[in-house]
């Protein structure tokens, strides 16, 4: 079994703050959106908690962004043209067919290139588009009067809310898929363990 140091400490700290934060935001978001049907805490408390955790996640995102930009690791998120087409297709074939047959994973992570092409495409959208948009719309909704001009420019508070809510549903869906995909390591808990210890275990290639 090969061991690779894939996740440095700042990345792990960021990841778990982010994971817990987003899970919490989704739960409080459900309560806020469907206040008549889900009563975890009083509505006002749910909004307050949602705002506080939203701010933590926003700051956590800034931490991540700064770390990745200044260390140059941000490149990890950008697939090459070859990865985008051939690598993506190969990976999709693996998840959609090969994995059921017991084929080996065509992608082998390294500290410099730790995401497979499909992960790159997904995380690129999530980290550089969806999360920032969600943070931006969340900030606007946090102080509607203060950001009135921007909100009007975007088409009104309902438009901003619609974007925020659609992304909220997306993240709720993503949590399910992400959690499941994290069980696709060489053991169901391998990827979880790696995100705690930093060390990913990779089975040796059979020759």
């Amino acid at each position, binding site marked *: 079994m090969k061991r690779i140091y894939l996740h440095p400490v700042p990345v792990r700290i960021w990841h778990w703050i982010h994971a817990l934060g987003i899970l919490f935001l989704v739960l409080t978001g459900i309560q*806020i959106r469907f206040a008549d049907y889900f009563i975890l805490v009083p*509505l*006002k408390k749910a909004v307050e908690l949602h705002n506080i955790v939203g701010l933590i996640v926003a700051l956590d995102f800034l931490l991540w962004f700064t770390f990745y930009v200044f260390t140059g690791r941000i490149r990890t998120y950008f697939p090459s043209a070859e990865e985008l087409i051939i690598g993506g297709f190969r990976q999709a074939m693996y998840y959609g067919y090969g*994995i059921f047959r017991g084929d080996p994973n065509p992608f082998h992570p390294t500290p410099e290139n730790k995401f497979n092409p499909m992960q790159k495409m997904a995380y690129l959208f999530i980290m550089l588009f969806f999360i920032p948009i969600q943070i931006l719309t969340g900030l606007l909704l946090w102080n*509607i009067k203060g950001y009135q001009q921007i909100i009007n420019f975007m088409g009104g*508070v309902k438009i901003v809310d*619609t974007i925020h809510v659609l992304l909220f*549903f997306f993240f709720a*869906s*993503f949590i399910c898929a992400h959690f499941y995909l994290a069980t696709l390591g060489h053991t169901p808990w391998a990827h979880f363990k790696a995100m705690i210890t930093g060390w990913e275990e990779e089975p040796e290639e059979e020759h």
Partner: protein
Amino acid sequence: MTGQKWKWLFVIMMSLSLALTFPIPSFAIENSECLDCHGDPDMVKELPNGKTISLYVNPKKFKASVHGQNDIACTDCHSDITELNYDKEVPHPVPVAFVNCTDCHDEEGTAYEESVHAAARAKGVKKAPICYNCHDYHYTKYLYGDTVVQLENKFCLRCHHPEKYHKWLPQKKTHFEYVMCAVCHAPNVGKHIHLRLYDLMSEKFLSGQEILNKLGLTYDTFMKRFDTNKDGVLDISEFHRFVRALRVEKVRAIFWGEMTDNLEPLVHKVTKGRAIKNCKTCHSIKSPFFDKVYLVLTKPTGQAPHYPVKRGVLQSFYVTHFYALDATRVRLLDIIGLLIVLGGVAFAGGHLTLRILTIPLRRRRREGR
């Protein structure tokens, strides 16, 4: 009784009957007579302390007031002035009696008596308002066409500083701009939603007359044009036709929504300590505060015909600049959202199921079979 006495009794009875049937005509004092003096901007009264107070009544502003528009005479309120004696320096009794608005506005008076303002007044708080302090003396206006902000500036904000209080309230400024104070502070009054057309570029509300002129309609023909099913309410498709007609006429305005109390007598019963503080009273899809929605077309007189609109319009994308959390949420988004979440669950569940079902396949392969 002699015949002579019968004759006198007959004359007296006839005189009484005639007097009761045809009262002696009184010479009512015309407003113009009052304004002969009080219409002079320089008319002042000197107080014992040497200060002066103006006794001027602006005739135009009075005519534009609710009372002026309804031809209320000065002496209808100043009813202690029954005649003018021009032989005197001041031709009417001085000082004039206190005008009691509740002589006409009795329901408003009853509601006021139960309010925090009346209670404060009873305790000797001189600043506590009576009718005039809020409604003015002679220039009482129709309030139906006023926005929440206009109403607050005319009334509550003259004495109260909402920023000092309401610490518990999230999005304070937004609430203050879109929700009339009395919505929470006069909890027993019915509520409704106003929709007005607002031009974001000029930052002005479009008057009812402007809108109707663009559409070639009048206040009376507006509903006839758009309420095609004649049920007296604009439903979503009828509202769509209205929006489309505005676009054809190049009216680029947004719908400005706000929550207001019904302007009924009970609105004067402003309470202390009993204001609505439960968010879910409004922020619920079941909240009755959003059941009545009106498109407001203001008139220059201050009146503002209200045209009923279905609640569903608030939950549509025709109204994008007014959104009350949960209460006016777009239901379609919930369906789309459910499909998105189910997509994630189905992907994970489906893939896992396939992995479980294909375990024998992988086992056979490992064993080289």
